[in-house]
């Protein structure tokens, strides 16, 4: 099977998943007690039955379930996720404003966690009795057991209230609105450090442990013995032959973890007031702004699906056995 065919197949499958997400979203809204009309009426400070009925007709809530679902799904097909009555803005544009901040946080923390996790994991596998091995064992326990918001708060206590090195939250200092892009980026990077490290802490633990296990397994395989018999130095055997073969499991898990990473980002954004999708989700949930919530759920599923397709392609690039099947 060639590359293009696989890509088309994966995208088609991703679309089916997305439709399923939409159906699930819509079903949930419908069966939940109270509807949009109730929320709007609540915001207005109460309304009588007549006004409620009017609102229901305006939003199409009087139509049968399938009709409503069809309308909802077909407007999503053109990326129209509805109107947020809380922000009084199109949901799509709301999300588009917040998405970059979340993507920045998620990807930077993943890159940090993967690089560092791989590095430490490899060192730990290379020298089983070394300090790094202890580090991996200890951090993998810590990374699983520590609630991510607690890690974040500890970092704030340490780096903000004890040593004031980093800002407590936000993404950019307000004073820099008119500054040059260079200054703005630097400032964003400065604000990014703590949230990024917090989110990365969980995944760093996972990736370092995984790398260590994968490397140890690969080092026992026959082709490593062959590489040694060729006369390759232990360093070359390790970094060229073994590392390349350990990447597969790492990429697989990184892809599978991605929806969990987004969940983690929601919490981290709340801790550091990072103005991303997570903060938006929390605000709209507290405000019962259903279209926005559903839009975010849809969008984050979309991001996960895209990342999964990408993971699949990377896996194919790494491992020729998958590529050719």
């Amino acid at each position: 099977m060639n590359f293009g065919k696989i890509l088309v197949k994966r995208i088609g499958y991703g679309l089916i998943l997305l439709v399923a997400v939409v159906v699930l979203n819509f079903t949930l809204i419908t069966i939940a007690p109270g509807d949009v009309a109730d929320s709007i009426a609540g915001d207005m400070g109460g309304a009588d039955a007549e006004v409620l009925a009017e609102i229901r007709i305006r939003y199409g809530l009087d139509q049968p379930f399938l009709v409503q679902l069809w309308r909802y799904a077909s407007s999503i097909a053109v990326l129209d996720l509805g109107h947020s009555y809380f922000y009084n803005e199109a949901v799509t544009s709301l999300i588009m404003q917040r998405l970059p901040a979340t993507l920045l946080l998620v990807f930077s923390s993943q890159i940090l966690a993967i690089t560092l996790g791989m590095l430490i994991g490899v060192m730990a596998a290379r020298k089983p009795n070394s300090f790094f091995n202890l580090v991996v064992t200890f951090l993998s326990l810590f990374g699983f057991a520590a609630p991510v918001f607690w890690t974040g708060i500890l970092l704030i206590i340490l780096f903000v209230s004890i040593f004031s090195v980093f800002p407590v939250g936000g993404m950019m200092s307000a004073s820099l609105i008119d500054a040059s892009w260079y200054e703005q980026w630097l400032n964003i990077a400065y604000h990014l450090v703590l949230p990024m490290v917090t989110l990365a802490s969980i995944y760093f633990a996972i990736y370092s442990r995984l790398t260590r296990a994968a490397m140890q397994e690969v080092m026992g395989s026959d082709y490593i013995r062959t590489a040694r018999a060729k006369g390759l130095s232990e360093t070359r055997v390790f970094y060229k032959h073994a590392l390349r073969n350990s990447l597969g499991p790492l990429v697989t898990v990184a892809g599978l973890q991605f929806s969990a990473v987004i969940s983690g980002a929601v919490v981290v954004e709340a801790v550091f007031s990072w103005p991303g999708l997570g903060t938006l989700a929390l605000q709209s949930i507290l405000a019962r702004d259903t279209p926005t919530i559903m839009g975010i759920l849809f969008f984050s599923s979309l991001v996960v699906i895209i990342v999964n397709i990408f993971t699949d392609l990377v896996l194919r690039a790494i491992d020729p056995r998958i590529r050719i099947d």
Partner: protein
Amino acid sequence: MSAPLLSVTDLVVDFKTRAGNARVLDHISLSVSENKILGIVGESGCGKSMTALAIMGLVPDPPGVISSGSIKFEGREMVGLQSNELCNIRGKEIGMIFQEPMTSLNPVFTVGEQIAESVRLHERVSVNAAYARAIEMLEAVEIPDATARAKAFPHQLSGGMRQRVMIAMALACRPRVLIADEPTTALDTTVQAQIFDLLQNLQDETGTAIILITHDMGAIAELADDVAVMYAGSIVETGDVKTVLSQPIHPYTKGLISCVPHLTKTPSLRRERLMEIKGVVPALTDLGQGCAFAPRCEAILPNCLEEKPELCSLKGNHLAACWASTAEMRR
């Protein structure tokens, strides 16, 4: 007689395990000269592969240790060499082919890359020249359409093809000694014959000394010049192939020979049906005082259970470690 290219003297390898100390190789001595094939035979677990790994300096550590003995290549001691010095011998002077062609090639690199890597490592040549050599080697091991196959990944090739690639890789730097550890065990019978022919032809061209490890007495009879029979970490009989096969002394050797029908030319050994050696190879941690083969031996003497027999010279270079043979000689 010219000095042997590679000689192993009194080599002892121990495995320190939780269950106790296992003597995996017990005072092994053997040697091989240019243009010769030394066969090592025995059942699985008798220490054949460990002998090969010890020569390559690849005894898995932990748990394995070379406790004593010497391995000399062209008169140079290899035991206790620094790892970078060993790396210069491995692959360049001594090549090795493994038992499992299916898993012995790295799945993420093309076979051409893997052969060229070996060349680049030991010789100062350009990337292109190394790759050209890889293709040349693939042609030498009779792989059709070598230029295209060099771009293939291991999983795209059959077992026989992969073993040819392994041979090409092992011979890419024109080593003086080639160790072939059961090169055909995992392959079909027809392919086995092809691989053996290939090894023979390559030796005729290059004069490489070959250590052929196998459990197949038939292959030994056809290819080898000398043979060493191993049992439970020791050599129990050794000598030139003709002598050992026609006048085997050790009951284990006799058993191995009678397992192969057409080899049984000696009337005294010819049986109505194929013989089998009863029992299994003992665990190396369970070895007692006496001869390791005693529990399975049909011609057991009182001495056998008490003291381990040593290799004794019978005639020329024909040696055997068996109380029966020493008793015969004394007579």
